[in-house]
């Protein structure tokens, strides 16, 4: 049997429906946080090196490490874990909401029954 989609195809940039729209919105936030942190940390280290020479980087020690080592080696992996946790929490919440919605639909009383 020929199956024909009755609407135009959704995509990441053209999400359809509430579920996909909200999912794409959260993914965009997470990926923005991911991209900005990676590029931002490197630009920060690069600009410090270019504009202030090595002297400032020598003095900027965080948790016993030079700032660029701490940012890239310690903070970014931790930040990625936090981003993943945030995404999962949001997905879990959405799953529960969808489930509640479907349960409400299922237990809706038929006409004539007490609510």
């Amino acid at each position: 049997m020929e199956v024909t989609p009755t609407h135009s195809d959704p995509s990441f940039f053209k999400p359809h429906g509430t579920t996909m729209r909200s999912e794409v919105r959260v993914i965009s936030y997470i990926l923005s946080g991911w991209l900005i942190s990676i590029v931002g940390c490197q630009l920060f280290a690069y600009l410090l090196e270019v504009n202030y020479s090595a002297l400032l980087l020598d003095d900027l020690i965080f948790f016993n490490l030079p700032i660029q080592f701490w940012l890239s080696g310690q903070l970014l992996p931790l930040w990625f874990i936090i981003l993943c946790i945030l995404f999962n929490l949001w997905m879990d919440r959405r799953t529960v909401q969808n489930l509640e919605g479907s349960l409400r639909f299922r237990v809706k009383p038929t006409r004539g029954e007490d609510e």
Partner: protein
Amino acid sequence: MAYGMIQLVPIAIVAGMFALFILSGLRSRSGQSSEYGFSGSYTGRVGIGAGIASNWMSAASFLGLAGIFYLKGYFGMAYVVGWTGGYVLLLVLMATQIRRFGKFTAPDFVGFRYESDTARTLAAVISIIISVIYCVAQFRGIALLVSWLFGIAYFPAVIIGTSLVVSHVVVSGALGVVRNQKLQYFVLIITFILPLMLLTRKLGYFWILPQFGYGAAISELQQQFGFNWSEPFASTSLFEWLALCFTLMFGTAGLPHVLSRFYMVPGIRDARWGVVWGLFFIALIYWSAPAYGVLARLFEARNGLALNTGSADAADMIALSGAGLGGAPLWALGLLAAGGMSAAFSITAGLLMNGSASFSFDIYPRLIRPNASEQDKVYAAKAFFLVLAAVVMTLTFQPWGMIAEIAAFAFALAGNTIFPAFLLGIWWPRANATGVICGMLTGLVISFTPLFIGDSLPVIAHLFPLTSSAFLGAPLVIIVMIVASLLTAPPSAAIRLFVSRDVHDCPEN
């Protein structure tokens, strides 16, 4: 570091660790029927995370990364960020959606989503090439360790290492050993961090968290020995750093053996939380790995040794040789060697078996013997396993580069081919077979061009460095896929509806 003599204590520790894994695997075999396993048992989200992490650990993580830090300093951070940041991409863009396709391998996914046997075969061929390249990096690590353990040259060590890997797979298969990935991960992390704690304690640094304690070594290297760590982009450009970092991230989200973890996990929610645990376990290794490279430099400087920039072999073994110079006891060196060997063995065995399975189920019955029975396919898989091992062994004789660099090339290939195929396959229902075939072929060309004509065309080598080509390559492949898909007929209505409705929960009207 003493070459030319047999390291009896480390050999005993390596043998003991393999015996432990085999015995543990035999014990967990009885519980297999009630649990779930993709070469291992399912034990909740932490177990999935440990499985992801132990599946990920390799010679590149154990040995290669320290070598990169030793030789290239801050440039090594691109590996740390790339190999952890890729899991964010994997989680948010692929992990949940892949499960909804219900396919078990990368070629399966490509064949189903793009409704094309040609695309499926091409994906299988690419998966095999990725496995071979990745295995070369692992075989190199195994050979270097065998060379150190038995005090023999690199060439015979490659042959012995290959024989050991093949024997390991055959014996494990014959005995029906199930990989206990949780145990394996926790043993690996102990073998990696315990020697590091010993070394930092010996130096009087903050040894309880050596991941931070090694900062004192950086200061000492700067102040007393004039090593310049404070100019992160002095020897490499910002572009090179970002290109490598993003290539590794795209590759992480495109490596077939990494993606396969998500096909098999029982629940979507478990798969998602398993990624978080896996990323945490992986980060534990990468928070620590730079310390080995930095400490090795310090020990060399203290002993009046110059930085050895010419030898990739020496750099790849710097975690062990640095620990030796720092006065770590032989049993600690044995732990480190056993961890590296175990990580390289398990990933190599998995990759070779995946490669042979791809051949026997995706290529052999389609291109070589269309009427092959199930028994024929099993024989083909066994034969191809040996062929793959021989090919990898032959390639490992060549000094292609450092372990981490060879692994990065495999990531670049995955990032240029499988990653775009999955990304558009999941997120754009209009992507079709022509698009994915053109895209994957373009990805192959982009990945291998710098290897073959990079010397004669420097602009190619600059824009698409061999180990970092997916930074510009993956977006280019995505553009090729979009253009080729739009210029040709759309995929069937059924698959478009499946992606919209079943994968993304879009309403039908």
